[in-house]
């Protein structure tokens, strides 16, 4: 499961990226978005998205509010904050650096 774990670790960044691209959306919509990219990330449990979302919320990288959907259900909608965008940018930069470094390293060996 090594591959899955690594992807699982990138879940927060993935969430931020999706929210940055698509604007406010609820947990289930985020789930389906992630599924379209990769079936691996949430392979174990779909629900594991939520603690990750709550952790982001706690760090004030996203904010949440309750809305009523067209089917008259109560849904919790998440939105990326300014701090979240900054964090995402920094993380992406760092990620690219690391992958670049790792790539170069692998080429040289």
């Amino acid at each position, binding site marked *: 499961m090594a591959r899955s774990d690594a992807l699982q670790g990138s879940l927060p960044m993935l969430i931020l990226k999706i929210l940055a691209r698509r604007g406010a959306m609820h947990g*289930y919509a985020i*789930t389906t978005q992630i599924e379209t990219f990769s079936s691996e990330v949430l392979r174990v*449990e779909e*629900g594991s998205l*939520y*603690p990750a979302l709550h952790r982001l919320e706690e760090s004030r990288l996203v904010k949440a509010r309750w809305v009523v959907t067209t*089917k008259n259900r*109560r849904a919790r909608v998440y939105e990326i904050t300014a701090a979240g965008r900054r964090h995402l940018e920094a993380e992406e930069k760092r990620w690219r650096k690391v992958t670049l470094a790792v790539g170069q390293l692998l080429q040289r060996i």
Partner: protein
Amino acid sequence: MSRWSRFVNVLRPGRLQDELDDEQRFHIEARADELEAEGLSRADALARASRQFGNRLILRETSRDVKLLPWLESIWRDLRLGARMLRKDAGVSAAAVISLGLAIGACAAAFSLIDALILRELPVRYPGRLVYLSRASNNQDLRFSALYSYPLLNWMRQHVSPHMEVFSMSHQSLRQAILPDADGVEEKLLSQFVSGNAFNVLGVMPTIGRMLQPSDDVTPGAHQVAVVSHAFWVRRLGADPDVLGTWIQVEQRPYQIVGVAEPGFSGAQPGVLTDVWLPNMMFNRESLGAPNWNWLQVWGRLASGEALQTVQAIAQTAFANFEDDEFIGKDGTRAAGSRLELRSAASGYSQVRQEFQRPLLTLAAIVGLVLLIACSNVANLLLARGAARMREMALRASIGAGRGRLLQQVLIESAVLTLTATALALALSRTAVPFIVRLLTTNENPVYLDTRIDWRVLGFVSLVGCFTTVLFGIVPALRASAAGPGEVVALGDRGHTAKAGVARSLVAAQIAFSLMILFVAALLMRSFDRLTAVNLGFSPDQVTLLTVETRDRLEPEQARAMVRQLLDRMESLPAVESASLSGWALFRGYSNGNNVALPDGRRAQTFRLDVSPQFFRTMRIAVLDGREFEATDSNATNPMPVIVNDMFVRTYFHGDRAVGQRLTTTRGGRAFAYHIVGVVAGTHDGSVRGEMNPFLFTPISDPAGTIQIRSQVDPKTLVDRVRQELPRIHPSLRLVDVTLQTSLVGNTLLRERLLAVLSGFFAALGLVLAAVGLYGVLSYAVVRRTREIGIRLALGAQAGAVVRAVAGRVALAVMVGGVLGLAGGLYFARFVEALLFEIQAVSLLSIALPLFSLLIVAAVATWAPVRRAIRVDPAEALRND
């Protein structure tokens, strides 16, 4: 998530749980919708969606932890850290906790007294619409200004009725009673006569049985029914439901107990706990027809929607008509134009309150000031400690702790301090409050206040706790949390200077507050001192008072003989200097007015007291002219020999000789003549403060009264001897009450004594706290500047210059504090002026005295640090760093 919503989460974990639940459910349902669209049945779709979602419980727990844990953990960490910091400087912390505890405890005690006496509403229906009738009169003595006669009650009932339901409650008094199970043994209980509708109007329900009803209050003397209070039922009757129907004897009259009042209702007069309620009709039969026999408090409940002013006008008119009908033009005893006022009685009417409201509020202000002093002291302490921890704070800031986080830490440390102090404070006020209530209680006027620690007291204490935490914690907290990472290295003198400035302002504040307290306390103590030094016109020392009664009805001749016999026996007891008998003792609080016509026909108002021969000798009242009474004086009834006092002569004879003159009076419709045989010196009666009043003394002819015995013998021994002697004089004679003349006088000064003692105590406490503060700041200044002082001394500075350098600014702070405190004290003094006796609030002495005591204490507190500064050894100070 905001700090607030986290806080809400901690307090209401249930709501967080629901929200997490809702979110999960939404996800599962949305997924199930999709699966259903793909062709699965709803049940299958839900089951599959749920499986894909994972373990809901564990996920929910994880999210919960994410939301709650960090904050809770940080608080817990700070709490532990705070406790550790307190333990580290155990001595200093103990001082802080004790001074804060004393101050908060004093505040809590003051609050529970004020709450019980003034603030708390009566536990009755519509307390907001309750009023009592009060007469605006010139009479200084409040006791009588709110009492009315039974005919007036009836009159008001008839004339104000639709606008206000009128009812009455008498003044409570201690009466002799025999309880059902007591085998005829007498005890005293507080009873109160009420109108039949009183409980209906108040909405007081019975615990068992029934309350008194209008039908219990119809025919004079015919309603032998009683209702007891819940507290009395529990305390004295063992909460036995079978007491209903049993008989209780009050003042030798049997009453059947028909009910027990609801718990919590102990009468409408805070400060007095009523044991038994009896119907008005059972009070003295004569009183029911006597318009000038004032024994009732008249109350009313405004009808719904009635304004106080409207009803007040109606009541005033009714009252004026009553006065016109009954008095004016009959014997001219009362001037027309007495004004009536309706006063709100939402929290009851209380004589205890009338008497103690201002003193209690004064004390509350004083303890408030003590609290402020204690707060500044603790703030100083935390500042000093904070300076020592600058490095720690800066370090924490540099590894990423936010300012809010540091603020939280320091505030929580303060809160730990306050919490400990508050626990101490509650323990303290629990013992202090009953003690103070006991101080206010006398045999004749038992004071009862419900001062249990309830949610109101707890609420108040927590409020004070929060307030103090913020007050003493916020400055040090802000200073500490302001530490930037850079300050780890650059901890120069700048921070110290700023801190020293704050400390000096705190010293100034402390000096100001304690000077204010000192100022007022000195006034109150000097006033009390003056009061105890007043010449009463008689000597209360070594006089024992024994009140006796006879059961049998005596023929006049028999009664006179018994008086003579009684006094002979008392005088013949060993070591008795002299003995006498009077209707009641001076300062008992009773009085009897008498109208007499002067020789020229003018009318004179005077107080009257029946006394036996030797009364003036026993009381050491000087006979100025004529003679004392003799044994034979009581035989002559018309003219009756009387003695008047100096005030009487001065007021009505304008210095002419009174002895030999005649006065006339009417009693029971018949005219009587008085023949003045002597003039005695004026005495105070009832109050040390008031003017002496005109007095008329008549010979006593009934043994029921108070015996005065002047003797060197210990009162206990004396009482035993009298107790043995009484049955030998007559089997129906019995002792009802024993007290000392000094305690009767002392009881009238209770309020002043309480104020003097407590304000003195708090002034001393404030002074000590301020001295500790001053000492701390100066010591710190000397320690901090030891090196500088060393250099100065090495360069040849004089001791005086060093002292100026170290103490100059602190001295300035003391002076500023002194000036502010004096101004505050003068302002504060205006509120206590009404409590002062023959003391000028603004005088040289009242300013000099507190200022001088403060200067002495300040000098003592300054001495040690200054001496240390002068004795700094330059060589050592320089080597030190």
